[in-house]
């Protein structure tokens, strides 16, 4: 699979192109079907909790299972139905946004507790970070007009070499990774971890 797609990228051969096209389509279908994997593991974990009447957990696990089953059935019957849309808009959307935003709290408490200039490296990171914070917030400019000037430089050329290298490293890493998977050196996929 790898070879066909790579070859299609480099060589202008028509028949190869259509094989690569079919393969890519296959990959899309498989990844779609695989979305259900998480569901099975969810039902297994919570099903077990209920079965064992795990103290303080099993009632909640029932909530999870009931929520899952009812919303899933509603959705399968009619995705545009009122109940499904309602659950989607008001329960799912809300929880999604809320959970995602909750790290905002932790960042602030960590700002006092965890972010210390332990050494020059961390110090530099914190200084650059704070300048960017004041560049992003309009108040920075009010405090000192220099913040956005330095900040814009940091956001442009300042961070560029560092990021450029992190990106190149990621690129090199991908190639090594591809090689290791193809040659069977990467345990994760084919060794299954045994």
């Amino acid at each position: 699979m790898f070879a066909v797609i790579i070859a299609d990228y480099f060589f202008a051969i028509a028949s190869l192109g259509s094989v690569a096209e079919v393969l890519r389509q296959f990959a899309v279908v498989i990844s779609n079907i695989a979305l259900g994997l998480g569901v099975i593991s969810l039902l297994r974990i919570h099903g077990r909790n209920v079965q064992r009447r795990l103290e303080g957990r099993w009632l909640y696990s029932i909530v999870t299972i009931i929520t899952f089953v009812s919303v899933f059935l509603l959705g399968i019957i009619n995705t545009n139905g009122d109940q499904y849309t309602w659950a989607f808009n008001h329960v799912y959307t809300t929880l999604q946004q809320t959970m995602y935003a909750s790290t905002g709290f932790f960042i602030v408490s960590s700002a006092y507790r965890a972010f210390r200039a332990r050494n020059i490296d961390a110090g530099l990171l914190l200084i650059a970070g704070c300048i960017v914070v004041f560049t992003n917030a309009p108040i920075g400019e009010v405090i000192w007009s220099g913040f956005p000037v330095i900040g814009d430089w940091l956001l442009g050329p300042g961070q560029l070499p560092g990021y450029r290298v992190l990106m190149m490293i990621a690129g090199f890493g991908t190639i090594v990774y591809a090689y290791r998977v193809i040659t069977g050196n990467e345990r994760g996929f084919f060794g299954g971890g045994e």
Partner: protein
Amino acid sequence: MILKDGRIVAFILLFGSFVLYYLFTRMMEQGKAFKIRTLAPLEALPEAVGRCAEMGKPIFYMPGIGSSLSLSSGAYILAGITILGRLAGFAAKAGVKLRLFTVTIDAMPLIQDTIKTAYAVEGKVEEYSDDNIELIANQSSLVSRYLGAVQRESPAAACLIGYLAYESVVLSEAGNIVGAMQISGTVNLYQIPFLVASTDYTLIMEELFAAAAAVSGDAGAVGPIAAEDVIKFASLGIMILGMVLAPLGITFLVDLLGL
């Protein structure tokens, strides 16, 4: 030429890399030694274990969230587990209790096996216990479990090495509250700034892979990394040359790379 326009350099880069990886792996198998350089976070592992031994406290390990089967997180979780093997060896030797928290169901057998082997090597297999390894259902419950455990058991050191997401900031803060020495490492770019600012040592991006390769010492792992260095040297050479040529108005190298 059947090669598509503008892809010649990319072609050379990819297949040149593959050939080099193969050659270096072979060279290693035939006895040539490549050494991965000293990585401070890796060197700090014995210190962390020593601290725990002195204070009579446990050490915590978190190999990250996600699935070891996934394309985005798999490799990093496995790299974290390789490093775990080394740490478990130190812990077994010093008699320090190693506590591990994970959500990665599919890596559980591997994790247990890795730790058990490390204890067996030190001849202390009877000190190993499955109870010290906790499997937790999902990311958020892992966070709350870890927060609770840190408070109750107050470890003297903690390692957060693997594929980390938003929990990195929360867990490292928890470690700082009890004054644990912390070693971290991930390839999730968004989390690295937080780890650098809040833990003592951090493996940045590919350092995690290099560290895992150094620990395993396996030709299939170290060889490609050594070969990659050759490619990096070549890139460095091109950039240095290019920087000298640019002010002179010579665009030959830029044009060449555009092929």
